[in-house]
């Protein structure tokens, strides 16, 4: 197995940007889970249609951490509309490449971001209604299955 990460990937793994939580986020999503081996939690702060702040927590491998780090760095300051079009290929190229069995990490990071944006938009729609824990869990389950599929075909 070739795991020769680029210097940039290593930097992001060893010194990840935007780690942590945002108290009272405008958008939040959890993707993956520890049983499958990787989980990311994203927190968004949105102001005037722009991502004012983004943070993440990770239970995952080096490239899981690095891809989330790079992505959050890139989308911070972006409009929600631009962030929704952000592609995982961009992470891979910005990192200078990823070992092919690790590409799924970048896919998961982007999926997590989009889920958090969707959560933000949902909250906007139903201004007052906070999503219950139960609903969130259902979303997470669905996403997990998708991510897993991607992983096995890529490996």
């Amino acid at each position, binding site marked *: 197995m070739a795991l020769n990460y680029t210097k940039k990937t290593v930097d992001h793994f060893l010194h990840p940007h935007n780690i942590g939580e945002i108290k009272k986020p405008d958008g939040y999503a959890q993707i993956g889970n520890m*049983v499958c*081996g990787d989980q*990311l939690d994203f927190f968004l702060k949105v102001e005037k249609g722009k991502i004012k702040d983004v943070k*993440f*927590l*990770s239970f995952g491998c*080096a490239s899981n951490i690095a891809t989330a780090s790079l992505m959050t760095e890139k989308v911070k300051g972006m409009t929600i509309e631009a962030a929704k079009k952000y592609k995982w290929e961009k992470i891979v190229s910005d990192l200078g490449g990823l070992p092919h069995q690790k590409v799924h990490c970048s896919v998961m990071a982007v999926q997590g971001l989009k889920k958090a944006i969707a959560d933000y938009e949902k909250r906007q729609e139903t201004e007052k209604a906070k999503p219950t824990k139960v609903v969130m869990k259902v979303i997470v389950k669905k996403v997990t299955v998708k991510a897993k599929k991607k992983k096995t075909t890529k*490996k």
Partner: protein
Amino acid sequence: MKVYLDNAATTRLDPRVLAKMKPYLSDKYGNASSIHSLGQEAFLELQKAKESVAKLLNGEAESVIFTSSATESNNLIIKGVALANQAKGNKILVSNIEHPCVRESANELARAGFVVEFVPVNSEGLVTPEELEKLIDKETILVSIMTVNNEIGTIQDIAALAKIAHKHGAYFHTDAVQAIPYLKIDIKKMGIDLLSLSAHKFYGPKGVGLAYIGKGIKVKPLIVGGGQENGMRAGTYNLPGIMGLVFALELAYKERATYLKHVKSLKDYFWQKIKKEISGVKLNGSATKRVPANLNIMFGSIEGEAILMDLSYKGVCVSTGSACSATDLRASSVLKAIGLNKNYLNSNIRFSFGRYNTKKELDYTIKCLKDTVKRLRSFSPIK
């Protein structure tokens, strides 16, 4: 500082073994199948090498076949015995914590129409005689159970399991790759019919393994051709490698007591320190029935590969389990087999100690490990 704590994946070649190989890497380069003097001298050395192995393992010299690896040995034995003994039955039993090369060989047989069953292990990683008795029947050709597991170091009661196999007329194979230099394998006493070894796991060279095939056991060869190894394994004899394997095995047996003491003291020291200095850790596998070189530890709420990589950048080499590249599923099937809580399946590190490790290295490792665990937990979503 560089620290290598992955001795179960491969070991550093012992310089004394290399010295023993040297003549075969220069003047003694004859092809052991040649009938001129240079070839016949090589052939005689090969014979002597087999006699040495037979003496160490308490087996027969004619039963010793040299291969390129334990992977090859396991493929040869599992597939070869099944295919050559279809008159005896159509069933193969292997434990469900075997190395992928045994598992995949068994799966290949299943696809070819054999009945293959995987014998479960208990929470300590042990195949119990009862479980084996449940699955074995008169159709069973072969039972294959590894002596020592590569991920959690569990030691099976080979003599008892072999006895059950024989009672039902089946051959007994054991992948003893991880047993050397920890156990004194005794083929006759333990009732082993077939056995596999790999030199690089006990300070010998890479690219050479051993298959022990008991007298009279029919095996379909994997590699055919020039008739070497009595037709059981063709190809020009790798004499430098063979001499290296044999000398490494001799050293392993000779220095076993000292070696065991050394790795046990390292392991005990390391584990005591970890338990004291790092919270949320748990030992996987049996605490007692395991080789002293192995510690497989769960670090709660952080991911194993991240721990590994973080340590690696600090100069410390460890493993998440096996060193195999074909991990389609990230989680270890061995840890699943012993029933580890599924929330813990991806949080494990195998430390395997060896001849060249020192306490100083372990102190450094603990220091690194504390930083690593602290850092990764600092941004883990798992509370």
